[in-house]
């Protein structure tokens, strides 16, 4: 047995261990590498930066714990940007189990910026029905949520909801997507009502959203941990995404090395078979 054949039979658990170590090392040695933000993220940032103070935006939490590491830092960075510019935030969710994650982030960031519940932000909650929710919000936003916030408190008593009837009063919808809800926002909210849309997505989902961007249905797409790290850079507040980027880079190098090694082994064995 030659070296390549031995390498090909390496126990998968050794590969798992190597992967784990490569993820952990940059954290343990506090490796951080600075990056220039990608153009997509800059576009999103500049758009949000151009929204007039006091406007209202909707953030929809369309993910849950399974994609939290990618989207939670993105949410926190975007919230920092919005609150620093005194923009009102209406938080909702199309994935029921994402709501508490969104809520946790908004409570934490609101405290940093001294923002008050009901005045500067509100948590509308979750309603089943996906497209139906999106369409009805365009007609009567508070009524879709039964005129109450997630805890059944009347929306009409909250200053944050002042003047908000439908999408016409919303500067932009920011959807954070781990599945296909982003398509629905583009297809129903944008195409039907013309409301502006920014989609932050897990890296699995992001490539599929590019056609919407080219067609002008979406202002910008934020894809995965890298986009979250870029947004953290732009709002000048390092967080989980920035700390994770070194690990991300090292693992990418490792996986490409795995692919190369595997292919060298493949070529070697093909050659042996032929001769």
């Amino acid at each position: 047995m030659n070296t390549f054949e031995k390498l090909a039979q390496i126990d998968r658990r050794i590969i798992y261990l190597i992967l784990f170590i490569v993820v952990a090392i940059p954290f343990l040695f506090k490796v951080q590498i600075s990056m220039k933000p990608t153009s997509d993220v800059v576009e999103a940032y500049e758009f949000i930066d151009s929204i007039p103070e006091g406007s209202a935006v909707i953030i929809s939490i369309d993910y849950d714990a399974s994609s939290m590491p990618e989207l939670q830092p993105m949410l926190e960075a975007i919230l920092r940007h919005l609150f620093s510019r005194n923009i009102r935030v209406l938080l909702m969710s199309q994935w029921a189990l994402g709501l508490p994650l969104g809520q946790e982030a908004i409570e934490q960031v609101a405290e940093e910026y001294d923002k008050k519940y009901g005045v500067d932000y509100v948590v509308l909650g979750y309603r089943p029905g996906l497209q139906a929710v999106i369409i009805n919000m365009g007609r009567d936003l508070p009524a879709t949520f039964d005129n109450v916030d997630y805890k059944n408190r009347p929306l009409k008593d909250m200053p944050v909801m002042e003047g908000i009837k439908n999408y016409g009063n919303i500067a932009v919808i920011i959807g954070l997507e781990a599945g296909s809800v982003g398509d629905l926002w583009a297809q129903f909210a944008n195409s039907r009502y013309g409301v502006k849309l920014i989609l932050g997505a897990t890296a699995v989902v992001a490539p599929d959203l590019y056609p919407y961007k080219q067609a002008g249905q979406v202002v910008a797409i934020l894809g995965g941990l890298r986009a979250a790290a870029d947004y953290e850079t732009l709002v000048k507040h390092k967080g989980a995404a920035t700390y994770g980027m070194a690990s991300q880079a090292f693992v990418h190098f490792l996986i490409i090395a795995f692919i190369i090694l595997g292919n060298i082994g493949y070529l070697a064995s093909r050659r042996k078979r032929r001769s």
Partner: protein
Amino acid sequence: MHLSTSIWVWIAAFFTLAIFSFLYKDNPFYRFAESVFVGSSAAFAFLNLWFFDVKPKLWDPIAKGNILYVIIPLILSILMLTRFIPKIKWLSRWAIAFTVGMGAGLGITGMIQGYLVPQLKGTFLPLWVPGNLATTVNNWLLVFGTIFTITYFYFSKPIKGKFGVAAKIGIIFIMVAFGASFGYTIMARVSLLIGRVYFLLHTWLGMV
């Protein structure tokens, strides 16, 4: 190193490690954690139904005396529940039929108004942009990349002749798209692991 002193962080770490232990081999710790996950996920379906749907949309209006306003969805919802009673299970079809019909109707409107029209509009690009070679080239790639991809997938004709050339170019675009998606998928999976490792090293062990 500042080990967490919260019992809840230790519980979270236990469940994290229990799931990771599957990578070594299947074992009782993993199966325990998996069972907890399955059981509680099922419970969440009921909790979400009550707190996000039935309570605000049915219970509260009825309690306020507005039963007429919600009578039809109330009936449909009750019909849906007949699914759990074998004898009258067939009644649940009425409710399912409504959701399926709505899904189909909304699907058609979304696909036409929200996808086909804007996407086709986006594809009608000028194939000659004076003084801008880069945009011209990109527009060619956009327009013909889209057309050739459709050619490859959606015509049940044998791949030969002029048609075959189009389909063969189509597959180049498809491979680039799959490669990009594949690279992004690896990126996403790695990010999820980073999140868990960060939890273990930072929140639990306090090493970083």
